[in-house]
């Protein structure tokens, strides 16, 4: 575990990409195979499920530290992380151990089915022989919350260096439905068995946001425009007579969307499509909130299937007749996609996402302004001769979202953040005026710089009117411009509205609270 803790510290202590890749490469060159395999699994989000409830962990930790539970609960929000809080309050370790990462992972997997007394004994025993960083990691692994500030891309790069394999190829090998219990390091990285996993997806190609005017992209005739849908990115795989649906987060979500079982009847085997999963009614998408009801559910009740049926709006073809065609230009992939989907009936739940025709950038700029009418959140721009790359790459694909809707609102409640933002007030509730009263309508957490958060934090401390647990009511004084992607009716909220992706655009130092917008102004933005 010490080697893995050292790796974690090295990654945590630097913001340099090169230093991170170097630390990872070093680990992949020196660690034992089972540890490497677990490291890849953990850094690619393949965490084991929570083995112990956090309620028990808090109790055991407080007991071992000799403090009352309430004091633990008061300390936790200030530290900002449960695993870290436990690691910090426990007395120093009394013993040492040389158990490796994979030993500990085996131990954690053994705990899941164990009874509570043996779990407690094992956890207390572990805490007693681990140092602070190791304890922190152990707790993270135990609670299923292990995340680390390294992208899968950097991990893949380091692994490809350590094993002398091409990066895109490595990215593809790491995809799919494996866990450290179902494979070995050798099979995963070195075995060339292509039949190993017919469900294995291709790495998604991700676009950057377009910041400059589209004119900078060159000739319009080199580009294809599509609507940018507000759903979830999905990869539909038809292989071996069955189908698999993957989310961008590399989660296999086949069972949540049974609609796609029918696609096997209408599309040839050995086909892989990239597109957007949307809740769909007749000929248009339903609001994201409808799709959201489906995302969280592992099984879908009949009523929900009827109320919020989904489709895949397909916009790319990655595998055609068993051939990986990602290297072919978009124009060719698009032509093949259209041929493939030309005759497909509506019950297949797969619909091609249309190309948006345009002759010059001004026309397209005008079309983009109508995105909300088209139930889209903007446009995608894709270079016609571009291959389908792996990961987020600049140059060939751009997302060109419409400007957000905005409203000026008054901050009325503040709450401190978690993790990196613990000790800073970062979570705010905003209100607009209605008949002389401030009505809360949204929360927002992001959009300010660290310096602005520090400033507002100092202000909140001095201007707290009342406390409700961790939430502070503050003097209604500061106005913020709130940006959001959409607004819909919501009987559950006092204001009667719910926003999509609310965030702070800027701090309006120039506006007094009395000049913030009203609820009527907000409702006027409804579609």
């Amino acid at each position: 575990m010490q080697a893995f803790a050292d790796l974690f510290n090295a990654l945590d202590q630097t913001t340099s990409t090169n230093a991170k890749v170097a630390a990872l490469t070093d680990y992949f060159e020196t660690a034992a195979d089972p540890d490497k395999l677990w490291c890849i699994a953990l850094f690619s989000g393949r965490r084991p499920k929570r083995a112990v409830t956090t309620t028990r962990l808090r109790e055991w930790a407080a007991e071992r530290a000799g403090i009352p539970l309430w004091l633990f609960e008061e300390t936790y929000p200030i530290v900002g992380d449960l695993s870290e809080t436990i690691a910090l309050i426990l007395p120093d370790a009394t013993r040492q151990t040389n158990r490796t990462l994979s030993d500990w992972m085996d131990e954690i997997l053994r705990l899941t089915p164990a009874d509570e007394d043996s779990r407690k004994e094992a956890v207390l025993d572990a805490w007693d022989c681990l140092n602070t960083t190791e304890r922190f990691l152990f707790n993270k692994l135990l609670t299923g919350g292990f995340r680390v500030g390294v992208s899968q891309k950097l991990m893949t790069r380091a692994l490809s260096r350590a094993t002398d394999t091409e990066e895109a190829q490595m990215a593809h090998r790491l995809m799919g439905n494996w866990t450290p219990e179902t494979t070995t390091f050798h099979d995963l990285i070195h075995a060339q068995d292509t039949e190993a996993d017919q469900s294995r997806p291709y790495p998604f190609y991700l676009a950057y946001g377009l910041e400059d005017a589209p004119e900078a992209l060159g000739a319009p005739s080199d580009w294809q425009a599509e609507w940018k849908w507000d759903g979830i990115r999905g990869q539909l795989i038809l292989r071996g007579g069955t189908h698999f649906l993957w989310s961008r987060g590399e989660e296999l979500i086949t069972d949540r969307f049974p609609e796609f079982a029918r696609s096997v009847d209408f599309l040839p085997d050995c086909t892989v499509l990239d597109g957007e999963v949307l809740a769909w009614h007749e000929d248009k998408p339903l609001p994201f909130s409808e799709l959201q009801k489906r995302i969280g559910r592992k099984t879908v009740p009949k009523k929900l299937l009827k109320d919020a049926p989904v489709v895949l709006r397909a916009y790319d073809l990655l595998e055609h007749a068993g051939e990986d065609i990602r290297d072919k230009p978009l124009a060719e992939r698009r032509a093949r996609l259209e041929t493939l989907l030309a005759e497909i009936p509506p019950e297949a739940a797969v619909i091609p996402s249309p190309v948006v025709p345009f002759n010059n950038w001004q026309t397209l700029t005008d079309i983009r302004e109508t995105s909300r009418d088209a139930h889209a959140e903007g446009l995608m721009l894709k270079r016609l001769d571009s291959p389908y790359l792996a990961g987020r790459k600049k140059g060939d694909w751009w997302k060109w979202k419409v400007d957000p809707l905005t409203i000026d609102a008054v901050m009325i409640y503040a709450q401190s953040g978690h993790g990196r933002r613990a000790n800073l007030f970062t979570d705010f509730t905003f209100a607009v005026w209605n008949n002389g009263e401030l009505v809360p309508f949204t929360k927002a957490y992001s959009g300010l710089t660290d310096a602005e958060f520090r400033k507002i934090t100092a202000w909140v401390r001095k201007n707290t009117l009342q406390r409700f647990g961790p939430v502070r009511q503050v003097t209604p004084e500061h106005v913020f411009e709130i940006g959001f992607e959409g607004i819909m009716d919501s009987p559950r909220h006092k204001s009667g509205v719910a926003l999509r992706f609310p965030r702070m655009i800027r701090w309006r130092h120039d506006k007094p609270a009395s000049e913030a917008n009203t609820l009527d102004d907000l409702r006027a933005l409804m579609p």
Partner: protein
Amino acid sequence: MRADPVLTFTDRGIYCPAGDFYIDPWRPVDRALITHGHSDHSRWGHQHYMATEAAAPVMHHRLGDVAIQTTPYGAKTQIGAASVSFHPAGHIPGSAQIRIEVGGEVWVVSGDYKPEPDGLCESFELVRCHAFISECTFGLPAFKWAPQSVAAEEINGWWAANAAEGRFSLLGAYSLGKAQRLMSLLDPSIGPILTHGAVEATNEVLRAQGYPLPATTRVTGDLDVKAHTGGIVIAPPSAFGTPWAKKFGRAATGFASGWMRLRGVRRRRAADRGFVLSDHADWPGLNDTIRATGCEKVFVTHGYTEIFNQWLLSQGYDSAIVATEYTGEGADTDDVAEVD
């Protein structure tokens, strides 16, 4: 117990009616007894100051030509009906706890304090009392400091590794106290120690008093940077990211503070490294000190006052919170979080 308390808490500061004086007041008063030279405790504008002989030079440096009556540690001074003495607080050079005795009852105002000796400032002295006025900047069980030698080893290891790569190490520290403590922990065989002007000005005052500080070079406009490659630069954190810091090229950056115990704060500071080193008492330090004073009453001033007060009450102390203006948001602290 007497009917009148030895100290009362007013909107100007902590006040002693029997001696008609204030301790570390934050509004101008006639007579102010000062625990130490940090700006949230030693403010400008009082008529008469009283402080330790060791604290006075820095106060003159910061406040100018003010009237300061000085006293050696441990000596008793009668002020009205109160007998007053200053005792080392272990926070920074010259820092003191102030003991006030009126009619046989003893109260101690600890100011900021650190029980662990650091080899530079006068070591903390335990003063038994009936009532103890305590800070609780780090009054949570998550705050526990490793011995100072651990931080020293980490800092020197970091510096040596940077020096081996031909990089400067830029170490952020408050210019009075933390900066000098860090210097005294550095291993000068690794390379040259450079200082920001604000730090060096304080160094000069403390050196003249006889505090043992290593040799340092002030960073001036005409400094030959190349000749000092691999050096460590001690500067206030506010100097980071300024044109001043640019002359050191791709320097590695670090901070030393008790807050660095928290990963969230470490990451937020966007420095390469955070070292856990504080001039305040940690959780065991606060608890052990309060217990050892034998006090019955505790007043907690700044820090996690509500939580720490609730904890003390649950431990059977007659404890209360006192609202003060000792905070980290003073004019010359750069870090909202830490009260130095």
